[in-house]
C-alpha cells in the first residue's frame, strides 16, 4: 500500500558517503526555505551500497531498497545523498531514484557537479541542482509521474543541461496535485 506523504512534517537527509558537511547544510537550508517541512541532516553510515557488476557505479535500485528498509517516522520522508555515480543495470546513469508513493528517495550529486564534466567546481550551482533534484524525487514520493511540460520541475531530465533548463518550479498542474508541504514556490 502506498505511504501517505500528505502530512509530512520533516525531511531527513542522509549523507551516504563523502558529502562535505557545509554542502549538506547549504542543501538543507535551501530545502527548509523552499518547503514547509523541517529539514534535518542525519548521521551517515549503516548502509553498504552495492556496485553494478563491471561498472564503477552504485546500484541505484539496491541502494533505494536499503533506504526504504530503514525505519522512517510516520511524519517524515528520507532522502539518501551520495557523491558517487549511480545507475541501473539497464541505464547508463540516473540522477536520482524514487518510487511513487514510497517514503524514501535517493539522489546522486556525482553528475550534478560541474567537476564531473571537467568544469571548475561551483558549490552554489551544485547546491541548487541537488535541491532541485531532491524536490523532483519528492514529487515522485507524492505520486507524481513525469510531466510533459519541459519547464516543469517534474519533467524528465536525462542530462545536466536539462536539469538546468527545466528550472526549479512546478507547473500549475503538478503543483495543484502536491501536498501542501511541497507546494511552496522556490525562494532561492
Amino acid at each position, binding site marked *: 500500500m502506498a505511504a501517505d506523504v500528505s502530512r509530512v512534517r520533516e525531511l531527513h537527509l542522509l549523507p551516504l558517503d563523502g558529502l562535505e558537511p557545509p554542502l549538506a547544510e547549504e542543501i538543507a537550508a535551501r530545502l527548509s526555505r523552499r518547503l514547509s517541512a523541517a529539514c534535518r541532516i542525519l548521521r551517515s553510515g549503516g548502509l553498504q551500497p552495492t556496485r553494478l557488476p563491471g561498472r564503477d557505479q552504485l546500484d541505484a535500485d539496491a541502494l533505494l531498497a536499503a533506504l526504504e528498509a530503514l525505519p522512517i517516522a510516520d511524519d517524515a520522508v528520507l532522502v539518501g545523498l551520495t557523491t558517487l555515480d549511480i545507475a*541501473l543495470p*539497464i541505464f547508463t546513469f540516473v540522477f536520482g531514484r524514487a518510487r511513487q508513493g514510497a517514503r524514501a528517495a535517493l539522489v546522486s550529486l556525482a553528475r550534478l557537479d560541474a567537476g564531473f564534466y571537467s568544469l571548475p567546481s561551483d558549490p552554489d550551482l551544485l547546491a541548487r541542482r541537488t535541491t532541485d533534484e531532491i524536490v523532483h524525487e519528492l514529487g515522485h514520493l507524492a505520486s507524481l509521474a513525469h*510531466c*510533459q511540460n519541459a519547464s516543469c520541475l517534474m519533467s524528465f531530465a*536525462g*542530462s545536466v543541461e536539462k536539469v538546468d533548463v527545466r528550472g526549479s518550479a512546478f507547473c500549475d*498542474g503538478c503543483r495543484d496535485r502536491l501536498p501542501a508541504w511541497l507546494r511552496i514556490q522556490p525562494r532561492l
Partner: protein
Amino acid sequence: MSASRAEAVRPALRLLVVDDETIVRDSLGAWFRQEGHQVATAESAKEALRLCAERGFDIALVDIRMPGLDGLELQARLAAADPELTIVLMTAYASVDTAVRAMKAGAYDYIVKPFDPDDLSLLVKRAAEHRSLRAENVRLRKSIDSVAAPPPLLGGSLAMKKVAEMVETVATSDATVLVLGESGTGKELVARAIHAGSPRRYNPLVVVNCAALPEGTLESELFGHEAGAFTGARARHKGKFETAEGGTVFLDEIGELSPKMQVDLLRVLEEKVVTRVGGNTPLPVDFRVVAATNRELRAMVESGSFREDLYWRLNVFAIEIPPLRERLDDIPVLAEHFLARFAHAMGRKPLQLSPATVEVLRSYPWPGNVRELQNAIERAVVVGSGPLVEPNDLPLHITKAPPGAGPGSLAEAEKGHVRAVLDAQGWNITRAARILDIDRVTLYHKIRKYELQKPADGG
C-alpha cells in the same frame, strides 16, 4: 500546463517490453510508468505474441537475444500480427551488423544496453511521432483513394467494357502504355485510370502535351534546365520526368514530337536518366509512361516521320479507344451522365433527354467524340428550360447534320463539318479548333487529310 492538458497533447503510449531478464523488464516498466505510459512486460517471445493477440500496443521494445525465438524472428512475427506496431530492438552488442539486420527486419530503430536515459526518452518520443505520422499517412491515402479516384470509364458497349478490362489489367503492372484514339475519345481519362489503379497512384501524374510547346521549350519542360542554360533561365528548373518521381508521365499527342525530341525521349525511356538542359550530370528518374496519340503511329513509322525504336518502346501495351460513332449504345449513357453532372453543377432540377433528342444524338457522327458530346449537353443544360432536353436545345450543327450522316459516311460527314466550321470562322484556325473541340495540330492534320482549301478572298 496541467498534467491533464499535457496528456491531451501526448496521450499515454501502450508499450510492450520483451526481455528475458527480470531486471530489464522491471526497470523499463517502472521507468515508462513514471513517464506516464501504460506498460506490459513479457519474458518470452511466446508471451509477447500472446499479449499482442490479446490487446494492441503502440510500441514494442524487444530484446534481440532471447532463448528460443530471438528478437529478430519475434520482430517479424509481431509485425505480421500487427503491421501498425512500431518495434524497437534492444541489444547489448552495438555493431553495424546488428543495426543492418534490425533495420532489414523492419524494426523502427535499435538501442544499445545500457541505455542513456535521454536517448531512450528521445527514441520513444520519435517512435511515437513516427507511428502518428504513419497513421496519418494511411488516413491521407484513404482520402486520396476516395477523393482522387478518376471518373469511371462510362459506357456499356462491348468495346468500352474491353477498354475498361484492359485498363484494369495493365494498371497494376509497370508497363508502358500507348493509348490510341481520335481526339475527344477520353485518352487522358484512360491514362488517369491507369495511374489511379497503379501502385504509383500516391505519387504525381504529370501531363505533358507534346503538341502544345515548341521543341526548345518542350525539351526544357521535359528534362528541366540548369540556371544560365539559356537566356531567361535564371534558376534551376526541374523537368516533368523529375517532377513525376515515383509516379506517371502522361505524354499526350506523342505523334507530334519532333525527330530530335523523339531521340531524346527514347534515351530517357531506355536509360531512365535525364540530363537537364545546360547540365552535365545524368539524374536517375523513376516514372512510368503512358503515351497517347490520335495519329496513325504505325503509318508514321512506315513513312519515316516517327522512329520505329521509339514506337516499339511506347507500344508495350496498346489500348485503342473506339470513336463514339462506333458505339452508339454508349451515347445515351454518356449524355445522361453529363446531363446529371451539369444540372447539379448549375443548380438545376434533374433533367431528362426526350426520345427525339436521343435519336438526334445517336444519328450525329460526333467527330469531336465524347468531348463534343459533353459540350453539347452542357449547352443544352444552359439554354434548355424544361425538365426534358429537346433537340432544339442542342447546337445547331448537330440537329442539322446531313441525312445519312451515319456510321457509313463518316469521312464525308467529318469533312463537311470541318469545312463548314472553318468557313463559318473565316478559316481562323484557333477559333475553328475551339469550336470543333480539337487542338490546332489536329485541325491542320484534318485539313491536309481532306485536302480542304481556303476559298479565295472576294469570291
